[in-house]
């Protein structure tokens, strides 16, 4: 076979034949591509427009907005609304700005994401490499967590947090989000590890590594792509959550999403739209950042999971 393809006489003839059809393919490809790019550009503008409006109005004095010119660029630029949203605006009854609540959200989201991702990885490892009787049924039950609507767990969860003494605390929210996210993280890691060769685990067993050593030294180091998926997914969901935050951590323990709502609703007298816009962008900034920094890996991780498993 190889001698045939290396035959110098066969080469040019084989290469010459497909050229005309290739050229037309390139030409039609170009037209389609221009069309596709136009459509994509349109959609991008459509999605960017609201953000653009928020952005320009967050750097205007309030007078320009109430004057009725919402779509125009600011005549006078100011960062005053941002400062106010961050540190002085009225949240409920306190003039604290979003800052303390932003910190609440970070204190909630970092442990919740770390714990749920790590536990998901451990679950995936056990469900694929330490199989036991009934493991598929258990996994099926865990998947239910992905489909249960938030509202259903509100009351049992409130009861549980009360019993544990975690009601109204950030740690209570961490627990809620870990429990709720575990279904997803387990699903991600299980599918990823299912494609990971079991022979590696066996080799490590013969080499004398135990359960946790295999997890730390063999499994986790190759879990980068799926860990990114899990982290982005969990981070976005937990950071953006409003219902659990409003239900279980009102007051000074509330996350930034709840505080933003209070900011918008609590302003007495004039509604400071510019401050509201600035606050909304501030509250959305971390998820935006995570996407910009790790979005590439997110797509790659999803692909890795789907191609292999």
């Amino acid at each position: 076979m190889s001698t045939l393809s290396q035959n110098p006489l066969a080469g040019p003839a084989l290469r010459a034949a497909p050229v005309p059809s290739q050229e037309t393919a390139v030409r039609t490809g170009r037209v389609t591509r221009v069309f596709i790019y136009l459509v994509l550009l349109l959609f991008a503008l459509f999605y960017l427009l609201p953000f653009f409006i928020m952005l320009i109005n967050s750097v205007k004095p309030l007078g320009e907005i109430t004057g009725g010119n919402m779509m125009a660029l600011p005549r006078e630029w100011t960062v005053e609304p941002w400062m106010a949203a961050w540190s002085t605006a009225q949240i409920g009854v306190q003039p604290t700005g979003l800052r303390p609540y932003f910190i609440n959200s970070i204190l909630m989201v970092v442990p919740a994401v770390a714990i749920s991702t790590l536990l998901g990885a451990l679950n995936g490892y056990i469900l694929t490499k330490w199989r036991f009787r009934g493991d598929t049924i258990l996994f099926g039950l865990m998947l239910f967590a992905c489909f249960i609507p938030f509202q259903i767990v509100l009351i049992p969860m409130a009861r549980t947090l009360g019993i544990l003494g975690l009601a109204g605390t950030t740690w209570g929210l961490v627990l809620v989000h870990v429990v709720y996210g575990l279904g997803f993280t387990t699903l991600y890691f299980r599918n990823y590890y299912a494609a990971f060769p079991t022979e590696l685990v066996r080799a490590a067993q013969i080499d004398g590594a135990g359960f946790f050593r295999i997890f730390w030294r063999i499994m986790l180091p190759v879990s980068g792509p799926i860990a990114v998926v899990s982290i982005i997914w969990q981070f976005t969901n937990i950071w953006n959550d409003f219902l659990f935050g409003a239900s279980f951590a009102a007051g000074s323990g509330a996350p930034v999403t709840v505080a933003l709502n209070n900011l918008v609703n609590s302003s007495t007298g004039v509604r400071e739209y510019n401050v509201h816009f600035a606050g909304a962008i501030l509250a959305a900034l971390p998820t935006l950042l995570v996407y910009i920094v790790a979005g590439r890996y997110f797509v790659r991780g999803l692909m890795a999971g789907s191609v292999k498993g």
Partner: protein
Amino acid sequence: MGFLDIRNVTKSYGSVEVLHRVDLEAEEGEFLVLVGPSGCGKSTLLNMIAGLESITSGEIAIAGQVVNHVHPSKRNIAMVFQSYALYPNMTVAGNITFGLEMHGVPRPERERALRDVARLLQIEHLLDRKPSQLSGGQRQRVAMGRALVRDPAVFLFDEPLSNLDAKLRVDMRTEIKKLHQRLGRTIVYVTHDQIEAMTLSTRIAVMNAGHVQQFGTPKEIYDRPANLFVAGFMGSPSMNLIPATVAVEDGTPVALIRDEGGEAHRLRLSQPSLAAWAGREIVLGIRPEAITDPDGADRQSRNIQPLRARVSVIEPAGSDTFVATPLGGREVIARMRADATARPGEVFDFAVNMDKAVAFDPVTEARIP
């Protein structure tokens, strides 16, 4: 009692028994090959020796100690996997020394062992690479290095060469054989390739469908296969298995074989015990190299039988020429010197070395002793 003892071992998954009462042993320093078609239970048996699969019943002992409930890392074994199973996140050096590290061997000693093994396998220049940066043959060497560095009592190999291309496979085969001769360690080696089995082993266990069909030296298995399965599986091209009828002429047994025209050919049998089979059917087993042209016949043989038959196909293979002739309803293959003069369609004088022929009971499929 051998160095490695497999006594009456069975394996079941749920209610399905996949290994049936296996009895094998290997002396210290022996090269035991488990060979058989895919799915016959070779890997399962090897994994049971390694401790990666539980033993349903029976006993496995290494160096006199029953290891049924001993953890894989404490059995003093090392294993080379078919996929090599190199840790993708570690360098070659890390892969090789991981087992030593897990066993608490201090760093200077690990490095010395690593250097020795790397020199032995000629992979010194690869130590800092990741497995993904290695070729198939290099990965194979690293996998062997990981096993060698442990200096275990028993090496277990699960089809270590099956992922290599043909040329490399032959080279590595020779290298494994050299390593065995040099280190003198006990090896259990799984393969589905009967040539690997013949060339490497000191003893072979031929397996099929969870049964050990025959356990013996390569020569025993090649010359005196225990049954039709072994006869057909070992050897390439495989043994000719020709239906025949036994007759007794002048007190000696003769095999009568019908050709395509219905005419009977007579081949005097060397095995006197077959006289008891007078008038009954047997399956005559003759290796291709025992059928030649008269000049190429084995001069040591005391019973060369002439056979005139039509040649149907000639297949020159460089060093040999294979000649096919229809006999007893089969294409019978003869192996001749490259310069043999047979031509397709002509009637040719074959010489059959009946000293090398074996006979099988067509009902039980076992060799007739």
